[in-house]
């Protein structure tokens, strides 16, 4: 226990002097790094615009309110497209994520040395790149539209679903698997009766959770041209139609809240 001796009296301290110095040094380096970063941001900023920002914000606010409510009649189809992008993208993703997850889980992978690293690489690369970037890429390849959005959402979701699913597979109860294999079941029968029933609730929960996230992400995919309500948003922004922008933002907010509510309800019912 670190104590401070002053004369004869001993006082309790949290850390020794060496630890304290080390900590202060660490904080010093941290603050220095932050200062350098802030300076770089500050250099790249036109401060005149920043001082002017409250006036601009007020100006945008007066232009954006009230929202142009009659524009909502034109938003039905884009919302339907957004829903399709999220749902079909999630469906494709979970179909592809299941085999990847089984290949990535330590206890079900066919080969720890060769196949598991490949599956993990697929998961990491799909997870580390945002769906907007995938959409950008797919638009260059297969052209703008809803289809590119669906594929972008699907690719982005594979990593997320597969990662959570393979962690669930690694945490299963082994005694049940052993019991099934003791009855003389084949590899596939062990899979179907020993492993799948254990991960099914987790699987359903993950799918619904990802669907909720995908609704959120598909609302902005249109900004790069991949269909959905984001297309209307970017078109309205380009012509500076602020009343339409505020209406679209309200619709997006409502969609996100509804999907979150649905996903919370369904997950509550499953688990």
């Amino acid at each position, binding site marked *: 226990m670190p104590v401070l001796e002053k004369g004869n009296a001993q006082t309790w301290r949290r850390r020794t002097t060496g630890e304290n110095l080390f900590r202060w040094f660490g904080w010093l380096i941290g603050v220095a790094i932050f200062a350098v970063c802030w300076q770089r941001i500050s250099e790249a900023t036109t401060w005149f615009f920043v001082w002017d920002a409250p006036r601009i914000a007020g100006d945008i606010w007066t232009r954006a309110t009230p929202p142009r409510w009659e524009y909502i009649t034109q938003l039905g189809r884009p919302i339907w497209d957004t829903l399709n992008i999220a749902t079909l993208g999630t469906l494709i993703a979970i179909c592809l994520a299941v085999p990847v997850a089984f290949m990535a889980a330590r206890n079900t992978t066919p080969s720890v040395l060769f196949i598991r690293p490949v599956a993990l690489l697929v998961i990491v690369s799909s997870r580390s790149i*945002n769906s907007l970037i995938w959409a950008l890429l797919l638009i260059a390849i297969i052209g703008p539209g809803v289809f590119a959005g669906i594929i972008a959402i699907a690719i982005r979701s594979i990593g997320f679903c597969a990662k959570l699913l393979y962690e669930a597979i690694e945490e299963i109860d082994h005694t049940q698997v052993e019991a099934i294999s003791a009855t003389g079941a084949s590899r596939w029968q062990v899979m179907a009766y020993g492993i799948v*029933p254990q991960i099914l609730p987790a699987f359903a929960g993950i799918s619904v959770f990802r669907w909720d996230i995908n609704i959120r992400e598909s609302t902005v995919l249109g900004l790069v041209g991949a269909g959905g309500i984001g297309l209307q948003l970017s078109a309205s922004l380009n012509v500076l139609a602020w009343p339409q922008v505020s209406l679209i933002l309200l619709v997006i907010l409502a969609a996100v809240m509804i999907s979150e509510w649905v996903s919370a309800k369904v997950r509550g019912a499953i688990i």
Partner: protein
Amino acid sequence: MSHRELEDMLGKGWRKPPFVSNPKLRWSLILGFFAYLVAAFMTIEVDWGRVYVGLDRGWAFILAFTSPDFTSRASDIWDGLLESIVMTVAASVVGILISIPIGLGAARNIAPLPIYLICRGIVAISRALQEIIVAILLVAIFGFGPLAGFLTLSFATIGFLSKLLAEDIEAMDKVQAEAIKASGARWLQWINYGVQPQVMPRLVGLSMYRIDINFRESAILGLVGAGGIGATLNTAFDRYEYDTAAAILILIIGIVMSLEYLSGIIRAKVQ
């Protein structure tokens, strides 16, 4: 014993129980799902000719991953990456610093009701608005550049971190906090010695995870002009320079992987 009697004795064969036990609900779910699928496929317009034409380009892009071009746009890539990293660091620091008091305020067992409601309101707003939409608005207000990206990421960090921190504080062990209070500690001392040691491991883990997310998000903010590598990436796609785009994507994946590895080490050390 006749064959008939044997079958009676054995009874019905065992069947897997269905996932949804209520048959009416099960069938209506299945039917509704297929009805939705049909409706979705009817309304999606896919230009298969365009997709077919694009397959060559897709293949060219996949090939580009085998020969990424780091050199010919090296200075652009370097500037973009540096700006992304700078934005990530600064936004994470500021976001974490702000989210700690808000997290304290959003925990019902620490904060009085009015403060609790205000902090929960801030968290809800920050979580409901998407990064890219916030970025669009902030770019309109503050002008192009990394300042808008920095503010966006800080704002998003607050919602994420405060909510999880508040949930952790609400789930903490009350006895330890009470013991500190009983020793006559002031409010700050109570937080520092009674609450903070309990939530610190999780706070560090969550912060590391958020830094990881912030870097990934900073890669797309450039699409709307908020600074970072996204602008470079967008230009590379627009000019069909797939080898440069592949190089940038490889760099992003590499940085995210090393961040994840680092955060794994730090989390293991703290817990």
